[in-house]
């Protein structure tokens, strides 16, 4: 795995407010990389800095061995697919896609050939002469995508690529993006606030919060071994119990003791992260509580119950055991389930 993009100690502040706080990331060739974070986490600023639209206060962005931090956006071998798609309304689909090649002063024949074959690849072969306002949301996105990859950039940056689409179209496009990335062999860097989107598409994910990178890992690793409470809370659904370990039990700050036999030094403050599937609802359960909400998914149901553990507990039940709000419930989990998370 060769490092294609090395983001090194990058910082950027707007009016004293740090948007990027000493961010370092390495992105590999041909990787599908996602930058995931809540709004205000600095992910969009990072993306715009990679495209060249934001200058850095400090740090380097090394692309393929060359520091591009001071290279203007029109000279970077990087293209950006905008969240709003930013298709030129006064041009046809063909002219939109051909825009970048024409600026490179490519021969007419080559432009026509590349644009036509790319439009066919993204499934818009018969739309070349359409105006952009005649297209549906999904079609607009395909045009934006084609326009951004036609120049064969070293990296394609995608800003919230699926956020403007309907759910059904979004699912299709997730697969489509994966397929295209394989087909064209370009490194994709996607910025998104939607963890489902990041988890389903990306090879690796960087989770950002308040201008800092909290963790970089594969989707599975992020889910199974979150590096800190923020990631544990942000990725997937979890119940995060805070306390200290002592003789095989977790002592919560309100004095309640719950099972936890995971290896960790005694006395240190930790968070025990329990995924909904770690907890079972059973008549033999030692922890009792009251159901405060249910969220039915089909095959199963997420139950939120108040069990006197400082925060409500979230767990899954099968679709034949769905409790009603207000019901008393008994739950338990094995002492060796869950993950111990420490503050970073």
């Amino acid at each position, binding site marked *: 795995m060769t490092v294609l993009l090395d983001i090194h100690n990058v910082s950027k502040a707007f009016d004293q407010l740090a948007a990027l706080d000493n961010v370092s990331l390495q992105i590999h060739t041909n990787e599908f990389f996602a930058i995931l974070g809540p709004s205000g986490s600095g992910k969009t600023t990072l993306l715009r800095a990679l495209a060249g639209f934001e200058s850095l206060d400090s740090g380097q962005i090394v692309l393929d061995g060359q520091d591009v931090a001071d290279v203007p956006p*029109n000279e970077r071998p990087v293209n950006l697919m905008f969240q709003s798609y930013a298709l030129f309304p*006064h041009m046809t689909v063909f002219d939109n896609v051909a825009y970048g090649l024409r600026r490179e002063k490519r021969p007419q024949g080559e432009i026509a050939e590349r644009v036509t074959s790319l439009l066919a690849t993204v499934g818009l072969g018969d739309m070349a002469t359409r105006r952009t306002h005649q297209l549906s949301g999904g079609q607009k996105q395909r045009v934006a995508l084609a326009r951004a990859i036609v120049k064969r950039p070293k990296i394609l940056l995608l800003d919230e690529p699926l956020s403007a689409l309907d759910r059904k179209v979004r699912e299709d496009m997730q697969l489509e993006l994966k397929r295209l990335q394989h087909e064209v062999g370009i490194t994709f860097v996607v910025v998104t606030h939607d963890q489902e989107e990041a988890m389903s598409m990306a090879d690796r994910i960087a989770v950002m919060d308040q201008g800092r990178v909290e963790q970089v890992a594969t989707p599975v690793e992020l889910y199974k071994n979150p590096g800190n409470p923020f990631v544990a809370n942000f990725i997937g659904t979890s119940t995060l119990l805070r306390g200290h370990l002592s003789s095989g039990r977790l002592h919560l700050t309100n004095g309640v003791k719950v099972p936890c036999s995971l290896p960790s030094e005694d006395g240190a403050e930790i968070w025990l992260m329990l995924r909904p599937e770690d907890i079972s609802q059973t008549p033999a359960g030692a922890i009792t509580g009251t159901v405060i909400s249910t969220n039915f998914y089909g095959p199963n149901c997420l139950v939120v119950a108040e069990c006197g553990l400082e925060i409500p507990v979230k767990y899954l039940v099968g679709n034949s055991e769905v409790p009603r709000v207000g019901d008393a419930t008994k739950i338990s989990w094995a002492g060796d389930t869950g993950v111990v998370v420490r503050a970073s």
Partner: protein
Amino acid sequence: MTGVGKLGWVLAAVCFFLYAPIAIVIVMSFNASKIPFQWTGFSTKWYSELFANASVLEGLRNSLIVGVSTMILSVVLGVLLAIGITRHSTSSAVQALALAPAIIPDLALAIGLLALFSAISFPLGLTTVILSHTIFCMAFVAAIARGRILQIDPALEEAALDLGDTPRGVFFRVTVPSLMPAIIAGALLAFTLSFDEFVITFFTNGPSTPTLPIVIYSMVRFGVTPEINALASLVLLFSVAIVLISQRSVKLSQSI
């Protein structure tokens, strides 16, 4: 009258005061008699006399020179001004100052300009008229263009830059085409405003280059002749045509 209700007579009165004078001018321009309000038969002779009138033709020529020059200057400057105040300034004072010439009373602007031109001993003529018209027409163009700029997605220009275009190329290939409806509307408005402008022209013009409104004014001082009715009708026709064209073109380019 159910649709209009009790206030229908107000509407009727307003319409009468608005359109009756215009109708009279048009009807009288075809009156064969030289005496106003005495219909003696249909005639187009005043129109042919008009086109034989050297001073009217001279005025028309000057007005067209002023109108077209003002249109070009105020579109270029107004669009740049609009980009400047929307994209490169957050100060509302700058915006207000930039657009103020559109609402400053003509008389104040005219007196001020005359004083300025005399102070720097700039000879009065069509050049000073064009400069003066540009000052207030530019503000109208800027106001129209500003509205359009605020509607355009700023990512359009970034996208063009991202695709490898130079800042200059982005301006001509993306910014200007996106502003085209505002540019056309602004150009036509600037032309019509300049074409029949009187007060500022009267103050800033030299004696040897009268524009059409000045020519009409000097003719009217000796009474309204049927010839003037014919001229007014033509100016009206011309202005309405421009307004229609501008509305159509804005609609057309917005649908693109």
